[in-house]
């Protein structure tokens, strides 16, 4: 038991970036030669080839007609058989919505618990993951023998660049039966046509639950207008209907990378951060000095946004005169 399986995921026809990051995380757990990158689906040749060009160890295609489209029942059945055959020490996943959907149940089949959403791996090994919505970090350890299941958070590990040798590719065909699959997934769809493209905005003023009420949003709008910036928001603001959903930044909204991102009254939960971490300059305004948003901010102001945001609007006006 020394092998490491890394379950790679594709999106939009390519291996998703977070899967390369999972592969990098796996290299902290053991020798590259022991790592097997796994692609799952109905027709996996193309993805396997893409992985083989970059994977350090081996590549394994888990292929069956019933693995397309994705269903938790299908993936659990297939990967259970693979894991039983390989008897790995570790199974590593990217922490995607799909992985959250099935990996906890897969681990439970082996009497194990997925150590989810890991941000760092240190000696022993200890796995760091966020607690209290990112306000604290916990160090987790796997107890006893048995397979260790781990999923890694987006952006936590630097994806490896191409390897010099092309890895060998093997095929694994699980035994599956249509009756095993109890859910019937429909085609993915988008809610409505997007009319704002936050992705190309140069400046964004983004507002979170610290704004307290819908009426107060106007102070954010004034600052944005004065700066010539777009208005964006964290999820609870859009859930409440205070701003349209297309202005939501984060894992279930838009990904932005402006020159300036001002986050006012946003705590900095990981699902928000993944959507704006790439901004060139981040300004955080929050009354809580320990808010996780300050961990990624270039400039921080601790205080009441109801006072600071209007003061900022005035200061920008003065500077522009």
């Amino acid at each position, binding site marked *: 038991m020394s092998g490491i399986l890394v379950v790679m995921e594709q999106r939009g026809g390519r291996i998703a970036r977070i899967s390369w990051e999972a592969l990098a995380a796996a290299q902290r757990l053991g020798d590259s030669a022991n790592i097997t990158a796994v692609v799952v689906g109905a027709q996996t040749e193309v993805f396997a080839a893409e992985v083989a060009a970059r994977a350090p160890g081996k590549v394994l295609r888990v292929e069956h007609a019933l693995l397309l489209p994705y269903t938790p029942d299908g993936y659990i059945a297939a990967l259970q058989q693979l894991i039983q055959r390989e008897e790995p020490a570790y199974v590593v996943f990217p922490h995607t919505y799909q992985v959250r959907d099935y990996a906890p*149940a897969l681990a439970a089949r082996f009497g194990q618990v997925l150590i989810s959403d890991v941000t760092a791996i240190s000696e022993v090994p200890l796995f760091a993951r966020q607690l209290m919505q990112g306000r604290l970090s916990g160090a987790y350890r796997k107890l006893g023998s048995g397979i260790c299941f781990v999923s890694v958070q987006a952006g936590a590990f630097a994806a490896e660049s191409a390897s010099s040798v092309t890895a060998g590719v093997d095929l694994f065909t699980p035994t599956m039966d249509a009756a095993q699959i109890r859910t019937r997934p429909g085609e993915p769809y*988008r809610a409505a046509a997007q009319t704002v493209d936050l992705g190309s905005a140069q400046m964004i003023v983004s507002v979170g639950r610290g704004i307290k009420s819908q009426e107060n949003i106007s102070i954010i709008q004034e600052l944005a207008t004065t700066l010539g910036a777009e208005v964006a928001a964290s999820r609870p603001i859009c859930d409440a209907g205070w701003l349209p959903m297309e202005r939501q930044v984060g894992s279930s909204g838009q990904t932005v990378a402006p020159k300036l991102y001002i986050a006012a009254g946003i705590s900095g939960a990981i699902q928000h951060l993944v959507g704006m971490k790439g901004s060139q300059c981040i300004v955080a305004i929050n009354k809580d000095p320990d808010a996780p948003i300050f961990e990624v901010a270039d400039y921080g102001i601790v205080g009441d946004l109801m006072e600071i945001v209007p003061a900022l609007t005035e200061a920008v006006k003065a500077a522009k005169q």
Partner: protein
Amino acid sequence: MKIIVAIKQVPDREVPVRINAAGKWIEEADLQFAMNEPDAHALEEAQLLKDKHGGEVVVLSAGPERVATTIREALAKGADRAIHIECDDLAHRDALGMAQLLAAAIRLENPDLVLTGLQSEDLGMGQTGVIVAELLGLPCATLILHVDKNESGIEVKRELEEGWFQNIQLPLPAVLTIQSGGNKLRYATLMGIKRAKTKELRRLAATDLGVASAPVVSLEQILLPQKQKSTQMITGTPREAAATLVERLKTEVHVI
């Protein structure tokens, strides 16, 4: 339809948290607690289904004495009755251990549908519901915003990444993990608060549920997160801070 909603009581997100002396959990003494946000949406979705199709909404919560206040809140909002699994080691039970407790209590009830939140605000495992489904041998769908009942079971709206959605058809009984924001939460009325006091609240001791597996994962230590950037903190009155920031945006960031 008989619907069980698993509700966790978590530290109120507005209140600062401190690491306890042992470095193994947070100081609970001076904390305030609240209903886990996605669980509130799970409760609402259960009540919408009951309003439409009839049946019963049963709240299930595991935790120490204090969780009774959150259970009462759920009952005041209209849940019919509640089950409280009494246990004092929430922070140190792993997700499988917690799911085993919940599953054992659910088995006694034989529900048509089990709803959990998709993630707890304190531990944030994001997996208890999925494991409960596995232990009960039921189909499961996660990140659900909306549930419709039909002849062959339920059709649910699932959130995907980056603003995409998907509908999924499941047979009943089933387990769903509910995402925040799919419905609008109702408030407890005065009448509801009054009636909550008369509703059944059944207590089960964790030890009576006959699940005693040792944890397979342990939380060794709690730390403050590491900064990824060196942040320039700007101080002063709001006016001073605003002026300083604008100056920096001009001279260092070149955006004004």
